């Protein structure tokens, strides 16, 4: 690898690392399942790297990356158009456009980081188990002596508490 290419790698990795959470969140908001988001992200990171030579460093990397991700998501969903969970395309485009232009995203993610720190150990344990790749809620619930539905409810309460915390933080900054 020559020095120029090495420099390019560094720039890409630095920018991607800084904005990876934003792009992943953006993709997740457009696909029905979290496994879909991981799958699309694999492709997005490849395409971003392939197109990185075209990227103007003076531009906003997040916007550019989300723009690229938007096409990848739409291509991914077109193959699954008959999936009953896929939203109609006009709504997806609205969500995508607003997501790309959302200027409160950074603040929201900072609030999210802050709120995630407040998860209690037992809440964290549930989240880690439920969100592990390939996790089966039935099995986890069984191990914990709960019904799957009660575990879903616990998860929902944790997510709502986090969302409330984010909203409260944004409200304090006049952004909610």
């Amino acid at each position, binding site marked *: 690898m020559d020095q120029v290419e090495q420099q390019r790698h560094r720039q890409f990795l630095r920018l991607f690392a800084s904005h990876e959470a934003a792009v992943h969140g953006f993709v997740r908001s457009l696909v029905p399942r979290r496994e879909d988001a991981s799958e699309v992200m694999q492709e997005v990171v490849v395409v971003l*790297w392939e197109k990185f030579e075209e990227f103007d460093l003076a531009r906003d990397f997040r916007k550019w990356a989300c723009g690229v991700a938007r096409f990848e998501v739409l291509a991914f969903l077109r193959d699954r158009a008959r999936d009953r969970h896929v939203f109609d395309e006009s709504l997806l485009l609205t969500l995508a456009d607003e997501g790309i232009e959302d200027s409160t995203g950074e603040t929201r993610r900072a609030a999210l980081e802050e709120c995630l720190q407040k998860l209690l150990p037992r809440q964290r344990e549930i989240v880690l188990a439920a969100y592990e790749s390939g996790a089966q809620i039935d099995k986890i619930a069984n191990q914990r002596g709960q019904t799957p539905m009660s575990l879903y409810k616990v998860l929902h309460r944790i997510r709502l508490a986090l969302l409330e915390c984010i909203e409260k933080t944004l409200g304090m900054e006049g952004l909610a």
Partner: protein
Amino acid sequence: MIDRQVLFELLQRHADDMLTPEQSASLQEMLRNDVEARRLFRSYLELDAALARISDSASDLDVLPAWAVDGILVQASSQPPAYARSSEPKSESVGTIQVRRREVIAWMTAAACLLVAGLSLSFRLQDSPRQGADGRVAKIAERPQGIPAPPVPDAKSSVVNLTIAERREQLIASSSDVLQLRLVSENGDAVANESDGDLVWSSGRQMGYLRLRGLTGNVPVQRQYQLWIVGSDVSGNEIINGGIFPVDRSTGELILPIQASQFVYQPKMFVVTVESPGGDGNLTASLLTKMDGLGP
């Protein structure tokens, strides 16, 4: 005006892939018609993605999420992406990814320092301890007395798994706002004949480590340490639970990551109490230690 309760119910079902066709139609209708609903939808799904990333990073302590590693490796090797990761057998999948991550580390050596700087922000939660099935905090770091602490890791070595002691050193080295405080007894003297220790805390990163040394007087499994953080905000003082740390050993040094139960706005004092598991309220007075006089 949206019905938030209905929206949140639908969001939950959407996130967990449990929407019926009718519920999917209702959710789409709400999203089409209400910008606030779309904002909350984005926020909820971003949160869902973040939790998935935390789970991914906690199950594998390397710095890159699995999909990113797979994607970058595709570039390095010109092979098709490993799309089938989630359907692979778990043990095989993990093993494969870990080997491939070592290759990535070699491939990206020159970029390692930048990686660390960038990714450290988004993976801070990795520093929390793992828990065993019984809910106890797992023993995280053990180092017999007399063996010097490992050196502060440089950027290159930071892309491999760090021990808790190395993470502590890294926090001290990398954050300008780190408080370094020694445990003292209630009357202000260094603790004698009992556990000694210190504490580091970064308000900016909301993380820190409690280090206990010389646990010579401890009877294993009979007492636990609890950290309390006295903080203050505009509404006055608040006492925050900094975590309960079962101590299941009797000698040497133990470093424990502080787990504040809520955001610590302005720490004023850290208090370590020792009591028996189950919290019968009988504190071991000689081990009631506190620190104050804050300032970097």
